[in-house]
């Protein structure tokens, strides 16, 4: 029986293993749909970030997303769930079992409806406590003629989010092939996550609109705060961010 099978991995998870797995080899490994196991390491290096506020004007101007074209129009699919296996920071308490894409097999339509409902104040004693089960935001990628909705609660770090976005928009982005070292510093491992716009060659800058309507650079705030305040995501072409000085093209997480 071939080991290292996806069945084997899941058994580990069901036993509550939270270890991060360090693996060498091609990203995406060959095993299981959650192929990005190998990409996860523990902490992220703290990288210089600049608190940038990107105003929306530039975004609006370039928003003719070829939607008018005869080609496939806005194809927005329901959220994609995290595919990362255990990637917890060893310092944090054990996280719940990693989610698997599309399991349990409930349509996203249904999930998002119920998530919305669970957030309303619960009037009934018998009801479940109203915690927000999901945080759906729209994601747009410059150059892609469709949007997607994702549930930020499915991810636990910027790295996981980055992985998921790469998968989602795989036809429009490619990952630069440098497989950096996987030291615990994590500094070089960030490079694997660069989103490179296939068409123009410029890197995509992840930005998000927060509760106040301001466009911020992703990665400035701790992950949890980001999830709470993010209303929508947009991966901008690097050229949009001209004049803003140094910018980050990958996700970084501040250690809190």
């Amino acid at each position: 029986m071939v080991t290292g099978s996806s069945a084997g991995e899941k058994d580990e998870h069901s036993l509550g293993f939270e270890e991060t797995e360090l693996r060498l080899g091609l990203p995406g490994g060959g095993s299981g749909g959650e192929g990005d196991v190998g990409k996860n390491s523990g902490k992220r290096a703290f990288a210089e970030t600049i608190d940038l506020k990107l105003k929306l004007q530039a975004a609006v101007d370039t928003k003719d997303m070829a939607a008018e074209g005869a080609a496939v129009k806005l194809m927005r699919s329901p959220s994609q769930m995290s595919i990362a296996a255990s990637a917890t920071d060893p310092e944090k308490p054990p996280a719940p079992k990693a989610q698997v894409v599309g399991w349990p097999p409930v349509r996203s339509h249904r999930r998002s409806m119920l998530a919305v409902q669970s957030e309303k104040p619960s009037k009934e004693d018998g009801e479940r406590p109203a915690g927000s089960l999901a945080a759906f935001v729209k994601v747009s990628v410059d150059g892609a003629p469709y949007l997607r909705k994702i549930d930020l609660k499915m991810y636990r770090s910027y790295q996981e989010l980055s992985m998921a976005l790469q998968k989602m928009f795989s036809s429009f982005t490619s990952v630069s092939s440098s497989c950096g070292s996987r030291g615990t510093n994590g500094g070089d491992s960030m490079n694997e996550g660069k989103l490179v716009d296939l068409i123009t060659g410029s890197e995509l800058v992840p930005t998000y609109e927060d509760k106040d309507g301001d466009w911020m650079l992703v990665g400035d705030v701790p992950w949890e705060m980001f999830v709470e305040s993010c209303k929508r995501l947009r991966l901008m072409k690097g050229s949009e961010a001209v004049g803003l000085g140094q910018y980050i093209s990958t996700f970084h997480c501040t250690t809190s």
Partner: protein
Amino acid sequence: MTEDCDGEEKDEETRRWSPGQGGSSSRGGGSGTSSSSPLKNRCVRGRVDQPPPFSGQVLENVLENVLQFLACRRDRNAASLVCRSWYRAEARTRLELFIGNCYAVSPARALGRFRCARALVLKGRPRFADFNLVPVGWGARFSPWVAAMAAAYPWLERVCLKRMTVSDADLALLARSFSSFRDLTLICCDGFGTPGLAAVAELCRNLRVLDLIENDVEDEDEEVVDWISRFPETDTCLESLSFECVNCPVNFVALEALVARSPCLRRLRVNQHVSVGQLRCLMVRAPQLTHLGTGSFETVPVADGAAELDVAELESSFVASKSLVCLSGFRMVAPEYLPAIYPVCAGLVSLNLSYAMTTAEQLKPVILRCHNLQTFWVLDTVGDEGLRAAAKTCKHLRELRVFPFEATEDSESAVSDAGLVAISEGCQKLRSILYFCQRMTNAAVVTMSKNCQDLVVFRLCIMGRHRPDHITGEPMDEGFGAIVMNCKKLTRLAVSGLLTDKVFEYIAKYGKLVRTLSVAFAGNSDLSLRYVLEGCHKLQKLEIRDSPFGDAGLLSGIHHYYNMRFLWMNSCKLSLRGCKEVAQRLPRLVVEVFGDQNKELDSDAVEKLYLYRSLVGPRDDVPSFVKIL
């Protein structure tokens, strides 16, 4: 409620495709076959187009008059195989074109053969696309179809699409091109928004049915169009209007006016932006409704402090709706309004509470009145106790679906094996069940298999992967084995929990009528796949994820793939070599391989495989991440 066409697909295509069949057929009359043998295509077409002699013509006319009464497509397929004359006559009289896989045939070919069709049913993506396993941009676009039909079918009346990508431009073209168009049903589609709906509303003057079910509708704020206002100002012919999935606020004034001028309206399903007070207005306008989707079923706080809707007032609306047989919606249900539906419960045949977080206590007074219920969809928040109440009353229940409130592997679920047993004891006429739970036992499943022998669809989802019988700790093999053994009418099966090769041995041995099989995180080895592919002769659709099946298992199905609609496998143990071999040995099969962009394409492991028979070879709209072998 057609969230999934379960075992209701009775007339599946059953053409026997034999690999390697070439030359002229040995069937009587030679070329009078359907186009199932591609090598004979040209030959068949050439002869078909020649006009028959006079007496033959008369005979064909007679034949057409007879064949037009044949509705079932399987019967029609059989009739078309008799001889050339019957083939032609059948082609001219087929009114509904059912295409289960949009890539199995091209628009030109389908429309070229069936020149008089008035209705098209078209299905696109494989079902696992619903769970984000098919990357965005994979395909299944409606555009080429609508473009071809605009030219070929001026009398088109009806279109039903499932899991297709439909753009606003497609909808506009549809609306412009067919003056008799009357019926549009979109299920689990995406790519369109309110502008497309506006075009349909405005231009389809004879529209009777507009059913939008579980679609992913674009609702970009900047682009939302008030499509409800676009319906003609005169009385409409609308019979059914369902837009629960359109997640934008609607112009209620326009909606109410529309309902008021639609005297034929029988089915109305509104979205959650319609409050219960507004619902009442609609019900007053349309007391003749048979199907009602109630929208939010809660009050929206009104700025001017107007009084909230009185439950009694709402109840009186339900009293007045004497024809109601199907209730759904309850998207935000305020429990105090639930009693308003008591007056109609006794007449209800179908009740969908699957978006309502009702507890057992809230459910009981409702369900205890629903003596005639045949279809019941509910959330697991009602628990085993709620299911017991349903089992006590709903003796005619045919279909039950219990959805999880919290769809994660480690959530708490209030339903378990106990609920399943209760249902099986109370509802022995059950034909279809979909049951999500966290705890299950073989004994419960065995009990159900013995009590509910009419089961046609059995889908059990134990949400924790590889979870065994929670009492004995054993795999769930025996339970599912009992299902296939005892439920002799079973055509659709979905398995879950800890499962070994044994369960597949059972399925192969007893599941002789199984057409659709869904497998996830199951089995030990290639044996499982081999069992199924060798034993389940009627297997049409096989979808597998995260199971340790490799090339040997894949190759064991070579004799059968031409008889299937598709095989889907992701995250198994397949290699490029094995998939290539299948592609080589079965030239009429399209073998698509795709996966993460990250991987080097010459890495041998295959992440996702989707194979299907096709008359037209590899499709021409393949995205970059898909490779056709």
